[in-house]
Every structure is written in C-alpha cells, then in structure tokens.
C-alpha cells in the first residue's frame, strides 16, 4: 500500500474523479504537516542545502535516507556520511563562510508505519479539507452508535489524545500519529 491518490480514493469510498482536487490537496497537506513536524523532507529527490557561517564537524541534512552526495563546496575536508541519519561527518572541524551540499536523499517508498501515520492524519484533516458542508456531524469521534436489531456500543469519550498515550497532540496531528512518527524526527547535532 502506498500513500497516493488511488489509496485515498478507496479509503473514502470514491470511484469517480469528483474529489481528486481535494484529495490531492489533502495528500500534499499531510506530507507537508509530517515534514514540518519531523523537520525533514521525506520524498526522494535531488537537493541543495547551504549553511552560512558554518563552524562544526557534522552537518545534518534535511532529506534522508541519504543516497549520494554529489558535492560539498566551501570546504576541502574529507567526510563520511550516514545513509540512515542524514549526517555528514567531517574528519576535522570545518569553518566556512558558506558551505553548500548537493545530494540525493529521501524515501523512494515511505515505510509502512509512515504510510499508516499519514493515513491516520489524512482521516483527521479530510473532513475540513473536503468542506464538511453536507454534514452536521462534528469531526471528532463517535460516542455511541446503534445498529437496529443488533445492539448499541458506547465509546469512551475524549479527544484524540485518548488511548493510553502520554503524548499531547501537536496541533492538528493526533497523539496517536505522533507516537508513530516521533522516531523519524530529524537528528540534530
């Protein structure tokens, strides 16, 4: 399963193209929200980062896992890089007025847990993105549901922070999503 338009259309039960514009916006919004929270870029692409008045021995890049480093200008120091963490380690301390790193990084395919988190976040924002004009139901959880001739189930009331998590939601991002994506936050050094 990927986090793409086809998956989202199945998720909301739409078979035509009437929601494509809103779905595409919601999809991009979810990725943007995740990237803002994680302070990193997720999709695989070429990227260039500049560091002004750089004085350190380690550079933390935003788009990783790293696949390749095309060039580092502003320093001749030898370096090593970590694919998983996006860190570039110089052999010695480097000072540079402007350090430019040209590289390729990011996920070719999002890991399954990130896809799951993205889908959960999509569920949280979709009603607002889609307008919600045709329903008077609040975007929160259902507290009680009755199926005639079967029975009634009442759910524990509360916000999205319920479920045993000690985390608080970060704005629009539910706490359950945060619990999944926290391990992907960018390493700072």
């Amino acid at each position, binding site marked *: 399963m990927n986090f793409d338009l086809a998956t989202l259309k199945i*998720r*909301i*039960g*739409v078979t035509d193209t009437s*929601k494509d514009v809103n779905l595409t916006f919601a999809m991009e919004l979810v990725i943007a929200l995740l990237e803002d929270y994680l302070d990193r870029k997720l999709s695989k692409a070429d990227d260039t980062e500049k560091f002004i008045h750089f004085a350190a021995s380690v550079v933390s890049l935003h788009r990783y896992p790293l696949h390749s480093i095309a060039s580092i200008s502003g320093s001749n120091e030898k370096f090593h890089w970590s694919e998983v963490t996006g860190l570039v380690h110089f052999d010695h301390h480097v000072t540079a007025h402007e350090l430019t790193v040209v590289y390729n990084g990011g996920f070719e395919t999002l890991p399954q847990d990130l896809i799951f988190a993205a889908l959960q976040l999509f*569920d949280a924002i*979709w*009603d607002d993105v*889609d*307008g*919600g*004009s*045709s*329903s008077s*139901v609040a975007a929160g959880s*259902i507290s009680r*549901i*009755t*199926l005639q*001739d*079967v*029975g*009634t*189930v009442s759910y524990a009331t509360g916000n999205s922070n319920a479920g045993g998590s000690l985390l608080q939601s970060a704005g629009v991002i539910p706490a359950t999503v945060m619990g999944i994506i926290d391990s992907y936050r960018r390493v700072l050094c």
Partner: protein
Amino acid sequence: MLSSADRKKFRDAQKQVLDLLGVPAVWTQVKAPKATSSVTVGFKTASWQDEELINAFGIGAKVLTVKVSDIAVIEKFDAFVISGERYTIDSVMPVHINGELVFWKCFVRGK
C-alpha cells in the same frame, strides 16, 4: 446527504457494532454453486416490542443482520447455521446509509 468521510465513519462504526455484538454463523446458499461462508451476524428474536415483525413473520421470528461486504447477495431460502441450529431465510431487506448498501436484514419465519 452525508459527506464521504462521515458516511465511512458511520458505516465503519455500525460494522464494528456487528463485529462486537454479533454471533458466528455459517451461511449456505440454496442455489448453485451452493456457496458457504463463515460470517458474523447480528441475531435477534422478535419480542413483544416487535409487533409488526410478529404480525408479519410469526411468534419467535428471527432477524439476522449481515454485512454486504461479507455476503454480496442473500436470497430467500438461503440458510444460516448458528450454534447448530439451522435458520432458513424467508425475506431479505436491504439497509442503506444514504445511497450505499451496507447490510442485509434477513427474516426467519417463526410460528
């Protein structure tokens, strides 16, 4: 009409009620290819509160609620085996949420 998101929300919640409170059953198709399937169904016996049901189907009539996602088509004379008892369907009614078919209500005649 509900939005797609709300419709999915309520549809999933109602399905969860059935999953939580339903009983295991084995469906047997009466016509060829005489398919069978193990499903979870809502099971209710008509009581004094279901006057119209009793008038239509008799005392002790049963109401079985089945998800369309479990069994796409249920017809008269199909049967469900629940705890060793065989219940033959007398009538099938659709249950919709807005325009979407979600459940089958199957009625078993009583006495």
